């Protein structure tokens, strides 16, 4: 790998040839704001919030799509850059509802974060604003296109990652929006509700319904685990508030899925808190289940197993449980003398 030397904010940085300014800055631990950038997606260079000043360049190039060259001198927070970012934020703010008090995204909204960072308290501009009806007709997520800043990542995820291609840019210029064909709600499109668009949306335009009013970004602890459904083994984050799971999203570190998820992994977690959950051992007496203590239940099971004898005992282990569960299960059966342990690998 050829090395390229650049200077960012006065600091010499040795980066790799072919890297963008943004990547080189990230390498040096320098934070540059972005809306439309995502390392998994084709560089769009659309939002222009990541512009930086490059010595001797005519304009302020977007750092996410501009490659570095030897000797490049970059300033990511110069006066000019800050002014341009403020103007950009001010423009977005002029066309964005300010209901941060109840917006689901508050606390992890990039628009909010950057307005805070650059002290943009209100827009300099008044005029026409978008006026789309809130789309809440599907059970999975809400689409509020008035909050959309048209970064386009949802479109890219839908086409480049999922491949369903349910949504795309529609119309042009100020009238641009993101929409399924013919302005239909998403349930009338090829959308498969993977919800990856909601994960990637930098603002509150796409928010999962199940998590609504369930917790603020800063109250939520994300625990990385593996999706309990099919055999792909997607790494997901469970969003936990207190002792309650309140959401889920793809985890980028997972090597099997790279953060991609499907509808089940994304929206199929709330069975955890279903009122149907078994919370106590049950013993059937006269054809009816009665709650019992662990001691009572396990003693009964142990007695019956002993009575059945090694030949009469069999067990079905589970393709749903962990390795550790399965290991102990077959170990128990085998140490009791029975190899009749199987599971539904074939179903």
């Amino acid at each position: 790998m050829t090395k390229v030397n650049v200077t960012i904010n006065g600091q010499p940085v040795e980066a790799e040839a072919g890297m963008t300014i943004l990547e080189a800055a990230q390498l040096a631990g320098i934070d540059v704001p972005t809306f439309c950038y995502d390392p998994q997606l084709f560089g769009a260079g659309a939002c222009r919030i990541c512009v930086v000043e490059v010595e001797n360049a005519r304009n302020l190039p977007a750092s996410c799509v501009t490659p570095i060259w030897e000797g490049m001198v970059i300033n990511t927070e110069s006066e000019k850059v800050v002014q341009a970012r403020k103007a950009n934020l001010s423009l977005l703010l002029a066309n964005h509802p300010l209901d941060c008090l109840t917006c689901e995204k508050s606390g992890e909204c990039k628009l909010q974060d950057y307005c805070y960072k650059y002290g943009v308290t209100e827009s300099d501009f008044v005029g026409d604003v978008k006026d789309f009806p809130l789309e809440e007709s599907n059970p999975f997520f809400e689409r509020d296109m008035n909050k959309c800043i048209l970064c386009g990542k949802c479109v890219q995820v839908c086409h480049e990652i999922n491949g369903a291609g349910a949504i795309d840019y529609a119309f042009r210029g100020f009238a641009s929006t993101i929409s399924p064909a013919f302005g239909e709600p998403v349930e009338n499109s090829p959308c498969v509700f993977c919800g990856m668009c909601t994960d990637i949306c930098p603002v509150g335009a796409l928010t999962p319904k199940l998590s609504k009013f369930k917790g603020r970004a800063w109250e939520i602890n994300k625990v990385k685990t593996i999706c309990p459904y099919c055999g792909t083994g997607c790494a997901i984050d469970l969003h936990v508030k207190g002792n309650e799971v309140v959401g889920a999203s793809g985890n980028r570190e997972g090597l099997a899925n790279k953060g991609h998820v499907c509808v089940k992994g994304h929206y199929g977690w709330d069975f955890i808190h279903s009122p149907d959950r078994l919370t106590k051992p049950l013993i059937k007496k006269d054809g009816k289940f009665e709650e019992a203590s662990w001691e009572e239940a396990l003693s009964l099971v142990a007695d019956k197993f002993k009575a059945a004898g090694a030949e009469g005992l069999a067990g079905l282990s589970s393709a749903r449980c962990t390795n550790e569960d399965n290991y102990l299960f077959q170990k128990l059966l085998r140490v009791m003398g029975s190899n009749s342990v199987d599971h539904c690998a074939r179903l």
Partner: protein
Amino acid sequence: MAGLAAAFGSGAMTNSIDEVENADCLLISGSNTTEAHPVIGYRVRKALRNGAKLIVIEPRRIELADYADVFLQIKPGANEAIFNGLLHVIIKEDLYDKEFVAERTEGFEEVKAAVEKYTPEYVAEITGANAEDIVEAARIYAAADKASVLYTMGITQHSSGTNNVLAIANLVMATGNIGRESTGMNPLRGQNNVQGACDMGALPVVFTGYQPVVDPAAVEKFSKAWGVSLNDKPGLTVTEIFKGAKDGTVKAVYIMGENPMISDADLNHLEESLDKLDFLVVQDIFLTETAQYADVVLPACTFAEKDGTFVNTERRVQMVNKAIDSIGESKADWEIIMALANKLGFDWNYGSAEDIFKEITSLTPSYAGISYQRLEEEEGIQWPCPTEDHPGTKFLHQGKFSRGLGKFHPIEHQPPAESPDENYPFILTTGRNLYHYHTASMTGRSKSIKEFSAEDTLRINPEDAANLGVSDGDMLKVTSRRGEIEVKAEITDTVGKGVVFMTFHFSDSPVNKLTNCAIDPVAKIPELKVSAVKVEKVA
């Protein structure tokens, strides 16, 4: 898995998910990938956008069939015939990889002779596919530099399931599409830890890591480690267990996290078996259809409430991390098993899931190099990983098959156990939909999903529907030799004439009351994909 083991010596997905998108050609059969394995489906579509060719062999016109270069719509149960047919064309047109066949395999000549009669015309007659399309598909597959086969239960859930797999293996070996990146033969595993359950020896014939219970060395090793003298006779399979229950030889059954009363074939038959048992204990998170039959129900906690590991379809061992404390008095399965073991007089003292994992790795060569620490640092490891400095194995059979030489098996087409007749004129085949999972005990209790996908339908071809006078949404009675259910009609040309389709997710319309428990003689998998049924409109 048995078929794969016979051909290559190892029963697992040979390659990795990541490699799918770089294949030149994907042959997908018996897998509705975009619905049953959506995230892998994304990779398939990416491969297509990258220019890969696609061959789909399916009884139903699944979504991917629309993107296929060749779509062979076959009758359910005609799989070996079609693969024999493809191989016939490849041999006839001299498109096979002679070097690979000579150096890496054995038994080719017998297979060559066996497929001689499977001309495209003959295969077309058996399968219902178009002869020219068969030739075209064979050429595309043979021409690819990197061709990968993806399949699932549509191949294996047949009375000839093992033969189906072997027929595919013949095709793969003849073209040298194995042991290299983005090639291979890839059974997509259906459940989050089905690979792990197999790896852990939750099978009647093997200990962990596929160490046979009939191997004295293995028995000795495990006996020593576990401090007891172990049984060296193979145990009973699921089907045999319930058969034993029915005839009284099996008295007590312990079911952990399974719901056979929805997922198994021929439920009425199964119900009789469960009723006969002396004692049934079910350990689960919900009072499932199966748990209803139990004498004792033990409350387990969900994946969110425990630590442990899952193994995915590409043999990747990954960490499951506890997110919340157990709900109510429920406990992690391993905790329950340990408590029960101690009640039974053993002295087990695992302080954590990790303690168990350490014991697993000490007894399992293919897991020997794996530890929780490594799993966390390396985002999972693909077995085999024999040593601590081994990076894991991305794809199998590089340079050499697990069994040495790859073995060709001559396969003859064998019709399904049940064929449609005057009384039961339709072939019923089953599968999953995108929104639900398995018996829907979890997805059926997830609000959004339940709301979006609340009930099942019987997919029926427009022509058949017209003949029966059935309109969309009509309530139908579907009857097989084993039972009957009621379900709404959905008229669609994605199923061929004479074929009907349902999922097995819904307890309101438990399709497995209808299915056939005829099993594959080797793998003991029931023929869930083909049953003869009668369809009537409910007055």
